[in-house]
């Protein structure tokens, strides 16, 4: 999951970045509507965590702008106002979910997983492909009922591939899912992670399509 956090309070923003990273997400953080607008236009995010009161305007206005240009990126609103009217206007502006400050980090992460899952057209919380089962909530993976330990990035790559098992994912796409702006991307990082994944879940579990990218192998 690649998440964009739009929050101008430095401490809360830092907390969200670190906290969501711990749940396996890749997080970028910006402080203003303008920066958020540019970031969303430039990269694909699984979801956006959007504060309503931002220095250069209302997060609701940004949200309406996104929806007007048919950007369907799931958005979770963070706000200090928690009256019914505020919630209704937030959701009616195109938000997928709504949390009032102060909130619980685990609840935020769970709600993000839920809106991302729904965006992908799935209702079940688990990703299943043949004998491989992923549980994004606790970053747990099993093969044939056997639990395997995956690193955060291995888990992210496998999740990306299993979300649409028949579809080929390019290396660039996978890198975008793995790394935020601040992180340096090592040139062969994706290859290394794929190699390690194959060692853990089976050699044929992931296919390489030369010159294009990767996809899941036949379900076993």
């Amino acid at each position, binding site marked *: 999951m690649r998440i964009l956090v739009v929050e*101008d*309070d*430095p*401490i*809360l923003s*830092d*907390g*969200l970045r*670190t*906290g969501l990273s*711990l749940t396996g997400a890749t997080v970028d953080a910006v402080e203003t509507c303008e920066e958020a607008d540019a970031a969303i236009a430039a990269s694909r995010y699984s979801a956006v965590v959007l*504060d*309503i*009161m931002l*220095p*250069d305007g209302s997060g609701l206005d940004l949200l309406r702008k996104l929806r007007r240009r048919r950007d369907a990126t799931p958005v979770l609103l*963070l*706000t*200090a*106002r928690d009256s019914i009217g505020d919630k209704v206007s937030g959701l009616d502006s195109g938000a997928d979910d709504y949390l*009032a*400050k*102060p*909130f*619980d*980090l*685990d609840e935020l992460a769970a709600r993000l997983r839920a809106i991302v899952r729904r965006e992908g057209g799935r209702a079940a919380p688990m990703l299943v492909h043949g004998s491989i089962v992923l549980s994004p909530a606790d970053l747990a993976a099993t093969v044939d009922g056997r639990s395997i330990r995956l690193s955060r990035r291995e888990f992210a790559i496998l999740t990306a591939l299993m979300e649409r098992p028949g579809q080929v994912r390019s290396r660039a796409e996978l890198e975008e899912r793995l790394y935020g702006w601040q992180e340096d991307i090592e040139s062969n990082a994706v290859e290394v992670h794929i190699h390690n994944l194959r060692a853990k879940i089976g050699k044929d579990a992931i296919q390489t399509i030369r010159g294009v990218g990767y996809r899941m192998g036949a379900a076993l």
Partner: protein
Amino acid sequence: MKSLRLRLFATLLAATGIVWLTAVVWIYVGSRGEVEQVLDTRLQEAARMVASLASGFESLPGKSAPAAIAQLGSYERQLSCQIWSLDGRMVAKSSGAPDQQLSSASSGFSDRTIDGETWRVFTVEDAGHNLRVMVGDRLSLRERLVADLIKGLMLPALLIAPLLGAAIWASVGQGLRPLRRMAQDLGDREPDDMRHVQADQAPIEVRPLANALNGLLSRVEAARRHEREVTAFAAHELRTPLAGLKTQAQVAMAAEDPKVVRGALEQIVAAVDRSTRLVRQLLTIAKLDADAADAPRSTVAVGPILAEIVADTPKHDGTVITIDASVREMVLDTNADCLQLALRNLHENAVQHTRDGRIVWAATPNSLSVEDEGPGIPSDELDKLGNRFFRGRLRSPIGSGLGLAIVKLALAKIDAEVTISNRTGCRGARSELTFPVRT
């Protein structure tokens, strides 16, 4: 009278009544004169006619020939006639005429009261025939005639009066309908419906009222919007640090990497520091709000106070702070605590917004100013400065939106004012404090 409708109704009714009464009096007076003239003429003609008839007889009928005279009696109801000889004998009279002589005048008009009744009499003297003819009628009869005439005029008017009253009542009601409609429109509204009433469609007389009402609605709406904004800003500024604290605490609990845990704990400490400052500012505001009385004054040297503030406030390395010599000489008759609060918050603002550049404090005898080289203030935000919890687009990360509110409150206590503007000709903002001129 409380009811406009009743008032208009009464006024219109009274006016109509007065016009009517005037008309009646006029007609009464006019008619009476007319009637008197007509009847006098009749008396005159009748007397002459009788005189000419009587002179036609060579010798008058006998002293007692009432039968012949009685022929003339068809006038008895209105006119009475007497014929006297010049030596004072009654020659003849119409039936119903009194026996007493109708007039003592030898000729012309005269009035006489006989048996309690006043007669109007015309006398014609015919010396040739030794006759005096008197024709008279009763004044009461004349009065009745005029009264009948007036009655004839008044009766239809009195019958019409209720109809007229009803018509006036209905028209007044009709005329007041726009007011009623406006009242109904306002009465039916939800409490937060601040739409303007339609002044341009109201009658001209009601328009000033509608305009005044719209003005009031606008002001109430603005006040409510301001209140809502302050509440929203306050909620944001108070809850965001709490959200930061909670999130960082949860990160510290969930993270296994000691570096991450330590980072989170450091953020918690920073968040508590910021919250402490916020609480201190809130308490300052509460205290300034609560103290209604003017702060006690004394002679205060500005230089040392400002120097202490500058020394206390951490600044960016690239910032140079200059206190002009004019400030060191400045002495005010004011409250030191309030002055210090205002100066401290203004200085903190200048320092927070200036990363690299100069901050200059300078004074004139009645004013003190600070200029920074920060980003300045967007012009559309200038009039919102000092609103509680308002933080502009170019906010500093550690501000709370309360500093300028405190400055304004503190200065109000010492009758001073602050004007904040963008510097002309260069980057940065300028705050100027003006103090009351000592008398």
